[in-house]
């Protein structure tokens, strides 16, 4: 997988359309700015504000997609969510006149819009990057929720395998290897290389072979395989957790943004 592949859209036509819409909004902004001073309360500025608010509300319905329109597949929903979100952020920028607002409410709205859009974009990139990395670099497949059970299984299997082993291997296993097997070791490094640190982690175990009697060497090989599997589970844990934790950056901000937008709309209508 080449790094740039992450930026290749799944449906290029949708990206082209949304980028064209953004460009059109910016061009309309530049044109109307030449004709009259910019105001978010009139004309294009108001239209962009109203449009962005409506898109935010529609995008907020994304988690309810299965209840609202269960006949629409997830992919078109997601595409609409992503690309409408992009256009809505451009509309917010046009609404604000590409300037940082003076008020706290305006600053909050623009800041949260930017945060939500950027975290959404990050999510899109992660959704394209992580599954490809997992498929490309790991042999083991694991559901996130099953990882603890799988790890426990590996520990049990390792315990069974070292039964009757020599003193050296047994001591090494109990002191060094078992704690490593039973404890999850997530790492950000897996995001860039799913095999990050694997050789360094296996090296002490492999060196043990020279110090154990010949009948224990096969056990050492088995332990190497088990530990390798555990390292792959660690990679799964790190990557899948990232894939899920990303939403924490996006969804609460979007919820707060929706609240602020509602207040902003109310204040505009009231005053």
């Amino acid at each position, binding site marked *: 997988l080449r790094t740039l592949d992450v930026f290749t859209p799944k449906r290029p036509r949708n990206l082209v359309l949304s980028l064209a819409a953004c460009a059109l909004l910016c061009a309309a902004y530049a044109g109307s700015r*030449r*004709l*009259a*001073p910019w*105001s978010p309360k*009139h004309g294009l500025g108001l239209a962009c504000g109203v449009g962005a608010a409506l898109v935010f509300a529609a995008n*907020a319905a994304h*988690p309810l997609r299965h209840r609202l329109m269960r006949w629409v597949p997830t992919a078109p929903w997601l595409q609409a969510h992503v690309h409408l979100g992009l256009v809505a952020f451009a509309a917010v920028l046009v609404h604000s006149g590409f300037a940082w*607002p*003076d*008020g*706290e*409410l*305006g600053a909050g709205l623009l800041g949260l819009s930017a945060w939500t859009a950027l975290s959404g974009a990050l999510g899109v990139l992660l959704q394209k990057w992580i599954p490809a990395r997992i498929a490309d670099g790991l*042999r*083991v*497949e*694991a*559901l996130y*929720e*099953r990882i603890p*059970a*799988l790890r426990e*299984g590996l520990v049990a*299997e390792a315990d069974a*395998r070292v039964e009757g082993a020599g003193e050296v291997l047994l001591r090494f296993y109990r002191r060094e290897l078992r704690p490593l097997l039973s404890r999850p070791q997530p790492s950000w490094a897996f995001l860039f290389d799913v095999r990050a640190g694997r050789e360094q982690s296996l090296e002490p175990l492999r060196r043990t072979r020279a110090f154990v009697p010949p009948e224990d060497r*096969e056990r050492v*090989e*088995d332990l190497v*395989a*088990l530990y*390798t*599997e555990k390292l*792959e589970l660690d990679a799964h844990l790190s990557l899948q957790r990232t894939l899920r934790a990303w*939403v*924490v950056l996006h*969804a*609460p*901000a*979007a*919820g*707060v*943004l*929706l*609240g*602020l937008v*509602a*207040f902003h709309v*109310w*204040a505009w*209508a*009231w*005053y």
Partner: protein
Amino acid sequence: VAREVRWGTPARATRLPPARPRGSLSTLSFLAGACLLAVLLVAHAAGKRDLASPGPLTSRHAAVEARCQECHAVPARLPNRRCERCHDPAAGRRHASAEHARLAGTGGSSPGSHPDLHCGSCHVEHQGREARLSEVDGSHCASCHFSRPSSHPEFAALREGRAEDPGLLFSHLEHVRRVRERQGGGPSETCSSCHALAGPDFVEISFARHCASCHEKNGSLGALDPVLPAEVETPRSVAEFQSSGERIVKVVVRHRDEWVLRSLARLRSEVEPEAVIEERGELGARLDRLRRRLAGLTPPAGLDLGALRAREAELSTELALLEERLRPSDATGEATAGREWLEDALAAAAADPRLGPEAEALAKTTAEDAASTEPKGLSASELEKRRAELLSVLSAIETAEPALASRAQDLRRRLVALRPGDLSATALGRARDQRLAERERLADEVQLRESGLAPSALVPAAEDERAVREALARAEARLAALAPPRGEPPPPEALSLKRETMETLAAPCVVCHRLDRGALVGPAPARTVLTGARFLHAPHLAHASCGSCHGGIEKSRSSSDLALPRVERCRECHTPGRVRDGCLTCHRYHPRAAP
């Protein structure tokens, strides 16, 4: 065989994975948004209004930062009347878009495509403490006018060949020649000997400063020809008089000589009584306007509830009268507004032996008008004649019947405002609309007070109060000096003698001033030639000589000649990248407040 790392999904799990909670994060997020909205609304209701503010107010308005209702009528948009609470104290509506169109010369009848332009469209608030509301982006103008200075049309004064008479007989040719002979120097020095800079523009031309050194000798403009003492005022001091047979001679005549002016005023009231009546009528109407303006100088925002209600009651009374006068016109479409009242007034005047014949004649004309079914406006000459007659009767009514004074003043004000072709119903309708708008403003202010809002601490000092008071004092002095004509008009031979005496008295004055219907026309040196723009000489003289714009002025023989440069001359410098070329560099939107 050693164990290998397995491919695919391991099948060693002995129990099902725990169920993953669905939608909990999004539910919590929605709840967080809803809670935030609720908190903001509650905080707003509790008085924390700045939460809804799109930005801090300018420093001038900072004191009302959290008192949104000072400017916003909720739940609605930003109405202009909330700005006018402080910024249009005399309810002159001079900030309205229609006034801008009037300023531009369209008579206020076609206020462009923005009849309801909001103040906030140009003066955008909530842009921070440092923002300046008076600095308006000139591109606002482009929607009605043009976008580039290169498209600026020729000045209306040049396009229409406008040459306003400043009321002074003045020849640049003669004066420039004399000045050069006397003090030498180049063209600029010659100009600056009279047109001296004081601040951003020239100091106003005055006799004492600019003319006396040549036109006076020992403080005198010269001596008058002999006049009959009976025709002139009795002098308060005889030091400057000599006798010449039956006649007297004033040997020292000063500029604005008090005796000459008093004598001229007396003679004028005998020779040109209509002109005096008309001028008194106009002065009376101006006084009424100025007094009305002075009474309304404290903006509604600065008044307490009692004062507001009193002002509202006055307006309601005026409106009731206006409605009463307009009712027949509304019903029949005839131009008969106010006729009933006038008929009553004329009937009352007819009972007075001093006014009887004149009032009867007017009543007859009014009745003839009433018999006419077609609404018609008067021609200019007819209007002037009728106006003089009516003003004369109104003055008499005012003197004879003090109870009718306020109504007579009101009628006089509208009579003076009438233009040829106007129907009285139109003028009354305008007055009614103005009063209605003012009452609406006051009602809004009363509502604010009743909702608990105290009089605003931000009310600016009435910027034009001093100017109004000065104008009022001037108008009162002029009216006091202008005695009403009395008695029968003199016989023709006496009239001829009086005209001759007037000419004799005015002889030193008419060297420079014009005599119009017996009155010396005062000069208007500060008149605005470019009515739609402002121009300051000082910054321009730093870069150009007088002659580079006013070429050929030194050969002019008339004071109305200004040798104005064409607009191309302005464009030579006012181009992008050189000198500011925005609309607001020269133009203003709102008419001036000066009375």
